[in-house]
């Protein structure tokens, strides 16, 4: 029984890391752009498929393909900002309009991937490795790598937010956009970098999800619920809250399988989200 719970906790941490990375990006973008981006999940998918593409069409090796994919996804985010988000911001459209638009982006990306890669499940071209046994708990090297990389990323996000000029500008912009503008912060630039960081994290989360499961064009869209649940649990807009929220959602979903049929995992996220909205709508750690 103990090893079974241990195994579920381990799985929960792995899954929680992925959800946390995705939710950090979602929350950052929400804080700076002030809207819930429903295309966020599809950027996870985009990151995973970029990796597949680079790994399959070149001989760079898988790790380098991942790095390229993250950069390519961030570049897509920048392009999208120039083509769509910036125009919407400067035309003064309100956030509901932008949210509806993000649904259009999501539909377009997801289906474009189906055209190029077919709707079937795919795997990364990486060798299948045996699990290692840590005191009765089985983990693959990929799962361990996911946890290590995710924690590294969280540290990086923390130092960006607390130590860099970008981080300070982001906070200033989120607290008071008009004041930020007056004090000479280049708002468009800060927003663009935020998009790139947020989508880069999404791409990484997508790659990790592809590594521990498989790829399909729906993979990112299908975890939009746990992603938003994590962001809301942490207080939407709060990056640190999103990390904690992701972990809690990941653990809760996996541990619930000890008591509930595994198919109902996703309902656990929903129940947590509803409970938070009723009792602590600003999230466990407060947010915007």
């Amino acid at each position, binding site marked *: 029984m103990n090893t079974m719970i241990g195994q579920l906790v381990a799985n929960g941490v792995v899954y929680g890391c992925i959800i946390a990375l995705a939710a950090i990006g979602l929350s950052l973008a929400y804080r700076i752009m002030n809207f819930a981006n429903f295309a966020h999940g599809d950027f996870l998918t985009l990151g995973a498929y970029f990796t597949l593409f680079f790994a399959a069409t070149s001989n760079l090796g898988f790790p380098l393909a991942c790095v390229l994919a993250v950069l390519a996804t961030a570049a897509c985010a920048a392009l999208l900002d120039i083509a769509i988000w910036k125009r919407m911001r400067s035309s003064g459209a*309100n956030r*509901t309009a932008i949210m509806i638009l993000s*649904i259009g982006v999501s*539909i*377009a990306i997801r289906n474009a991937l189906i055209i190029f890669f077919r709707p079937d499940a795919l795997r990364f071209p990486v060798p299948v490795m045996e699990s290692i046994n840590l005191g009765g708990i089985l983990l693959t090297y990929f799962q361990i790598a996911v946890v290590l990389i995710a924690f590294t990323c969280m540290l990086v996000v923390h130092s960006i937010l607390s130590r860099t000029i970008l981080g300070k500008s982001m906070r200033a912009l989120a607290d008071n956009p008009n004041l930020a503008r007056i004090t000479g912060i280049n708002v468009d630039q800060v927003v663009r970098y935020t998009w790139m960081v947020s989508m880069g994290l999404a791409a990484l989360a997508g790659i990790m999800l592809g590594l521990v499961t498989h790829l399909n064009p729906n993979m990112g869209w299908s975890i939009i619920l746990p992603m938003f649940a994590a962001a809301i649990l942490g207080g939407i807009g709060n990056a640190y809250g999103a990390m904690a929220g992701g972990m809690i959602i990941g653990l809760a979903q996996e541990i619930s399988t000890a008591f509930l049929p595994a198919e109902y995992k*996703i309902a656990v996220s929903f129940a947590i989200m509803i409970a938070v909205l009723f009792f602590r709508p600003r999230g466990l750690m407060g947010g915007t």
Partner: protein
Amino acid sequence: MQDYLVSIILTAGIYAIFALGLNLQWGYAGLLNFGHVAFMAIGAYTTVLLSMNEVPLILAVPAGMVLAGACGAFLGVATLRLREDYLAIVTIGFSEIVRFILLNWSSLTRGSFGLYGYPRPLEEMIPHEDYNLLLAGVVIVVLLLVYALLEILAKSPWGRVLKSVRDDEAVSVSLGKNAFSYKVQSLALGSAIAALAGSMLAFYLQYINPNNFQPIETFYAWIMVILGGSGSNRGTIAGAVLLWGFFSTTRFLEGYVSLSPSASGALRMVIIGLVLIALMMFRPQGLFGRKEELAVGK
């Protein structure tokens, strides 16, 4: 050819009813329901399951509407005191949860095998091959009734309060209106209308399965509403006709293009996504809407 026309009338009509429910929520009250399909699913499954257990349709259809309305009200109570995007997030989650429950509660719903062989209205009165024609008539009557109901409500003092909540909630509160209650009411009524569309869909398809109720169905309704002009019931019906016209012409053209079925379906969806983006960027009032009465872009 007649069969083809009848099937277009049926699908466009059913989706027009579905989208009218959304227009009440978004067009009149400014509520972001991103899980509209859940209420359609609730309507379809409730009606079918009850009627398979000998409950007459005259009760089974309203039962679905009541259940969907209650779920809509519940989600509203949970989120409508918060910023408007919480409703969007929670409803989209709810629509996935409903689909998962329908997929996995096999003892009740037969999961992905779906349900079939259930009674349909007026079935014994007419030979099977003509049934769709009759059903098309029923759908048109229901559509007209829903349209008339919504037009009366929209032009009534009730609709006036709803529009004031959409425009500026603080103003309507300052004039003594319980804005929260009106939002919940519009969510409940719109959800009940979606359930009615769900029952009609079940009658038409003769076979329902949880995958009929994917999240994308919700966004078909959004495109119909926005294409026609948010806040216009007539525009919403026109939007439904246009969207189904687009679907059937592109299906017809598929024969001439050398794409795999999944790729051509996906291409159609890419176009749908781009249309939604273009509408929001360049013509948020839709084709027939009035810019002055736009539900977005205060």
